[in-house]
C-alpha cells in the first residue's frame, strides 16, 4: 500500500463470512417447527476473533448457537455466554424468506442502509462506546429450500463510508512502530485484556502509552479520561485480517465513531493480531489515518453512505450451499443401507 511517509487512500479488507453446518441445521428445524411461514427478521449473533495466523484471515462465523433454539428465545435478544476469547459476538439480523421469489425481491440496498443507520445512531447516542460490539453489525438474507436442503444466502457487513475516504500514512508492523520496550508493554497489556473474561471479547479499545513506555488498555467509554492525560493514544481493534498492508473491516466504523463523536482528524490505530492466541507485534499493524470529512457529514440526522454486501468470488452474487447429503432423510437412508 503506502510507502512510509506518503499518504494514500486507506483501503480495508472486507470481512469474510463462514457458516458452520450446525447453523443451517438449526435454522431448518426452527423454520419447520417454530417459525412456519413467519418471515419477520430474527436477531442472530455472529462470532469473530483477531487474526491468529499470518496466512489466513479470521472470519465472521455463524454457528448453531448464533440462532435461538426455540420460539420463546426468538422474542428476546439472543443470550450469548460472554467471555470466550475465540467468540467475540457481533450482532446480526437474519431475513429468511419463504420463497426464492421473495429472496430475489429483497431490497438489499435499503436493508443495508437500515443497518448502517443503527450503527450511526449507536455512535451518536454513545451506546457504541459502552458496548463496542455494536460497531460491527452484520446482515444475512437467506432462502432455506427445505425440499432440496439447499440454502441461498448473502451476507453484508455494513460500513459507514467516510467522504472523502480516509488516507493513511506510515502503516507498518507494530514491532517497527513501537520501541522494543513499548512493544513488550503493549503486548503484555493486550494479553491481559484478552485473558480477562470481562474484556476478552470486547473488540475495540484504547491503547494509552505513557512517556516511560508503559501501555495500558482502556474501554472506548474511557476516552474522556484518556484525553486528560498527556499519553500517546492509539485506537485498537481486533483485526480479523492477516494482510501485511491493509487493516481489516472493523476499523471503518471505528473511524466513523472517532470522527463523528470525538471530532478527531488524525487517528493512530492499532490492528491487533495474534499468533497462537497471543499478541503478536510482528503481525499487528500501526498506522495513522487522516480524516477530512465535511462538517455536515458528522451531523446525526445525516446518515452516511453504507457499503458492505459480501462478494462471492469477486462477483455480486449470493452463495448457495446444498446439505442434502447430511439432511435429506431419503439420502441418509440410502447411505446408511
Amino acid at each position, binding site marked *: 500500500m503506502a510507502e512510509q511517509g506518503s499518504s494514500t487512500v486507506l483501503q480495508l479488507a472486507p470481512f469474510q463470512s463462514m457458516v*458452520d453446518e*450446525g447453523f443451517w441445521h438449526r435454522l431448518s428445524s426452527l423454520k419447520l417447527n417454530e417459525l412456519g411461514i413467519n418471515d419477520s427478521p430474527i436477531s442472530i449473533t455472529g462470532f469473530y476473533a483477531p487474526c491468529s495466523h499470518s496466512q489466513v484471515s479470521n472470519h465472521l462465523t455463524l454457528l*448453531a448457537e448464533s440462532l435461538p433454539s426455540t420460539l420463546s428465545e426468538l422474542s428476546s435478544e439472543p443470550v450469548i455466554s460472554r467471555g470466550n476469547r475465540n467468540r467475540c459476538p457481533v450482532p446480526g439480523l437474519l431475513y429468511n424468506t419463504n420463497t426464492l421469489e421473495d429472496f430475489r425481491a429483497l431490497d438489499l440496498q435499503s436493508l443495508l442502509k437500515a443497518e448502517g443507520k443503527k450503527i450511526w445512531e449507536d455512535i451518536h447516542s454513545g451506546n457504541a462506546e459502552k458496548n463496542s460490539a455494536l460497531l460491527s453489525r452484520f446482515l444475512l438474507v437467506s432462502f432455506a429450500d427445505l425440499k432440496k436442503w439447499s440454502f441461498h444466502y448473502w451476507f453484508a457487513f455494513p460500513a459507514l463510508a467516510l467522504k472523502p475516504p480516509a488516507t493513511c500514512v506510515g502503516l507498518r508492523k507494530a514491532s517497527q512502530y513501537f520501541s522494543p520496550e513499548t512493544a513488550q508493554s503493549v503486548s503484555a497489556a493486550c494479553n491481559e485484556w484478552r485473558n480477562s473474561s470481562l474484556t476478552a471479547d470486547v473488540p475495540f479499545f484504547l491503547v494509552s502509552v505513557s512517556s516511560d513506555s508503559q501501555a495500558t488498555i482502556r474501554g472506548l467509554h474511557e476516552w474522556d479520561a484518556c484525553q486528560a492525560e498527556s499519553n500517546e493514544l492509539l485506537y485498537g481493534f481486533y483485526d480479523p485480517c492477516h494482510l501485511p498492508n491493509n487493516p481489516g473491516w472493523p476499523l471503518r466504523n471505528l473511524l466513523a465513531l472517532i470522527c463523528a463523536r470525538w471530532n478527531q482528524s488524525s487517528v493512530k490505530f492499532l490492528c491487533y493480531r495474534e499468533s497462537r492466541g497471543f499478541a503478536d507485534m510482528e503481525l499487528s499493524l500501526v498506522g495513522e489515518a487522516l480524516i477530512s470529512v465535511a462538517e455536515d457529514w458528522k451531523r446525526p440526522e445525516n446518515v452516511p453512505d453504507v457499503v458492505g454486501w459480501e462478494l462471492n468470488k*469477486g462477483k455480486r*452474487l*449470493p452463495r448457495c450451499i*446444498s446439505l442434502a447429503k447430511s439432511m435429506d432423510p431419503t439420502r441418509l437412508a440410502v*447411505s446408511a443401507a
Partner: protein
Amino acid sequence: MVLSQKLHEAFKGTVERITGPRTVSAFKEKGVLSVTEFVSAGDNLVSKCPTWSWEAGEPSKRKPYLPADKQFLITRNVPCLRRAASVEEDYEAAGGEVLLDNEDDDGWLATHGNPKDKKSDEDENLPSMDTLEISSNKPIQSISSYFGGDDDEDIPDMADYQEPDNLIETDAATLQSTYLVAQEPDDDNILRTRTYDVSITYDKYYQTPRVWLTGYDESRMLLQPELVLEDVSQDHARKTVTIEDHPHLPGKHASVHPCRHGAVMKKIIDVLMSRGVEPEVDMYLFLFLKFVASVIPTIEYDYTMDFDLGSSSGS
C-alpha cells in the same frame, strides 16, 4: 458404510450405554484417560494454547458424564496450505518417512513434527493434481460445486442484483480482493488454502480423545468430508481416518479412529519414561496432538509447548 463397521458401531454404542465412564486413572498403564483426566487435560490445553476452547455443542447430544459447558474442545479456522499428498512427495524425496504405526519404529516424533522448511520452498512445490491419489479417478471440479447444489437454474442471476449506488466494488476505501477476482477457482494457489475446524471429543468406549476434522475451501464453503481425506496422510486416509457422525455437532465429519490411540499413547509414554521423563496427565493432549500431527501433517493447529520430550532430534 461397511457392515462390519456398522456392527461395531452398534456394539460400541451398547457398551457405552451400559458401562460407566472410567474413573480410575490408567494413564501410564494403558495410555487411556478417565473423564476427569480428559477435562483437566483439556483445561490445560485451553490455558496454554488459547486458540482452543471448550464448547457445549448440540444440547440434544450432550453427554451426561461431561460438564455441560465442556463437552468437547475445538480450534477453528486452522490453515492448511497444502495437500498432505504433496507433502509426502517431499518426504519421499528427502529419504522417505517413518510411519508411526510401524511396529519397529519408536522415532514417533522424528519426521512429521518438522516438515522441511515450508516457507522457502513453497513456490517450487505447487501441488500437482495428478499426484493426488484420491482425485486421480475423480477430477477436481470447480470448488463451489462441491456443495453448491446441482440446481444451477435456481441460483439467482447476477443481473438481478444490479445496484445503482454504494457498490463495494467501486468503494475507494474497500480493498478490492485481487486473488479471488484475478484467478480462476481451480487454480492451485486457491485450492491449497483450506481451513479446518479441528475438534477433540472424548470417546467413552476407547477411553481416549478423538480428533474430528471439518474442512472449508478457499471461499470458506464447507468441504465434503471425502475431500478432507486429501489432507490426511495417505497411509491413514480411509484406514484410520473415517467419515462418521460427530458426537456433538450435526453432519458427517472426518475422524481419526481411536482404536489404536491407547496403544500409541502407551508407547509414547513408555518412551518418555525410559528417557527419565515423568509424563503428567495434564500433558496428555499435547502428546496426543503431536502424534495426531503425523496423521494430518499439513493442518497447522496449535499444540506447541516448550517442554522437552527427549525426542530423537533434540536433547
